């Protein structure tokens, strides 16, 4: 995929949008230029910006927390068949549950602050990272471990030179697969019981203020966040895992 094609696609969307909004001429479909104006105004006066930062913080914190807990747990499970046999039925059952159905429960238990949102994102990413890192660690050949041990590596060096680089692609793949879901669930969670975050901003601008350009600006901001997280992970993978891209 080339940069030029992406830009062309963007222009295409804008043209169709413009045409639709001209023909329909409804307040609920403002033209793209008006939305862009509202977007930059919102960034400047901080109105949109503070909500975007609140959402971004929840995503980043939830992601960091899930990596910090799921990656080591996945490494342990991947290395111990016994532990894995014990836990895998549990993972098997909980992994496919669409975590968005847990939103009301998490909100009931953890209230209205940042915490329930971070926990929701954590729950989505945790299992994904856990499973992928576990499978990756289980696939490390024992011969590889033994030959690195024969070079003098103990536990710490094995972690540094084998387990860490081996689990990195699994973590990044997990993030790429689920960061979109995480943002979507965050949006749903922010519709209730909060006054900060893009979910709230979108809902409030649309249904209370009837400020549709602002609502669209919020949607744009949330989409940008999802897209840049996705491409950010892609970029990190190219930087940190160059061997995956060597033909």
């Amino acid at each position, binding site marked *: 995929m080339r940069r030029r094609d992406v830009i062309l696609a963007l222009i295409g969307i804008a043209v169709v949008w413009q045409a639709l909004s001209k023909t329909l001429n409804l307040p609920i479909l403002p033209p793209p230029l008006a939305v862009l104006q509202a977007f930059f105004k919102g960034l400047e006066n901080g109105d949109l910006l503070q909500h975007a930062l609140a959402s971004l913080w929840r995503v980043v914190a939830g992601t960091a927390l899930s990596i910090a807990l799921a990656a080591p747990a996945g490494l342990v499970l991947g290395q111990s068949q016994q532990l894995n046999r014990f836990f895998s039925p549990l993972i098997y059952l909980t992994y496919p549950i669409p975590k968005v159905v847990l939103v009301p429960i998490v909100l009931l238990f953890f209230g209205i602050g940042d915490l329930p949102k971070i926990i929701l994102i954590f729950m989505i990413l945790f299992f994904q990272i856990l499973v992928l890192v576990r499978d990756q660690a289980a696939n490390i*050949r024992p*011969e590889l471990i*033994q030959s690195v041990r*024969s*070079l003098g*590596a103990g536990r710490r060096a094995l972690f540094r*030179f084998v387990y860490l680089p081996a689990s990195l692609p699994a973590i990044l793949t997990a993030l790429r697969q689920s960061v979109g879901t995480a943002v979507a669930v965050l949006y749903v969670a922010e519709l209730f019981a909060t006054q900060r975050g893009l979910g709230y901003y979108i809902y409030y601008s649309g249904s209370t203020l009837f400020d549709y350009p602002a609502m669209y600006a919020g949607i744009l901001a949330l989409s940008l966040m999802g897209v840049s997280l996705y491409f950010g992970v892609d970029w990190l993978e190219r930087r940190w895992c160059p*061997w995956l891209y*060597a033909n």
Partner: protein
Amino acid sequence: MIRLEALTYAYSNHAPIFEAFDWQAQRGEAWVVLGPSGCGKTTLLYLLAGLRQPTAGRVIVDGQPLTRPRPHTGLILQDYGLLPWATVRQNVELGLRVRLFYGPDGKHAPEDFRPDVDILPWMERLGLTAVQDQYPGQISGGQRQRAAIARTLALQPDLLLMDEPFSSLDAPTREGLQNLTLELWSEKKLTLVVVTHAIEEAAILGQKILLLGLPPNRQATIIDNPGAAQADFRDTADYLSLCRELRGRMESNA
């Protein structure tokens, strides 16, 4: 250099593979361990490398009972020994980086380890300079084994253990690497222990051949092969008759 004293080894909940097994190898000798699949060759090599501990008895290397991998022992396995995510050059440097990681603690790295070891001569000697920035998945099997050899020899071992190092290579590449192994063995005055199930390889590389049979192995069967390691041994009548003898013995063992 190596002494097995009444070595017994069994994987947990399995019948023993070695039982009160005695064996010795002198410094500078070139040994081949030969035997059918499942006889315990790899197990023996892991015991010699300090990667597994005997169930009973002792493994003594250079006068010291082994309890962990010894910094001056090098180990090369058939496949999968290179880090797939590191370039050839980074793989060759790996042993040195592990040593730098711990510092000269006498445990993971020798006490006299000096961090200024240069891997470049090894890269050149083994013809790896042209592929130094490639990943193991991008180079040939022969080049991968060369990289494994460079990585191990850069640590200046005195004992080199190899587990079926060339069995996945085509014949010309294999012969080339067998010759290179013998060259390095005599040049660096290594003690060499090569594990193989290939009779021809045993005859070429082993001045002495330790023959293992179906477990449990209780007694060391040793065959002397003074002609090994000489130029053109492959073309002599001695070589052929040794191969015939080894084949006969392996069949009667099985």
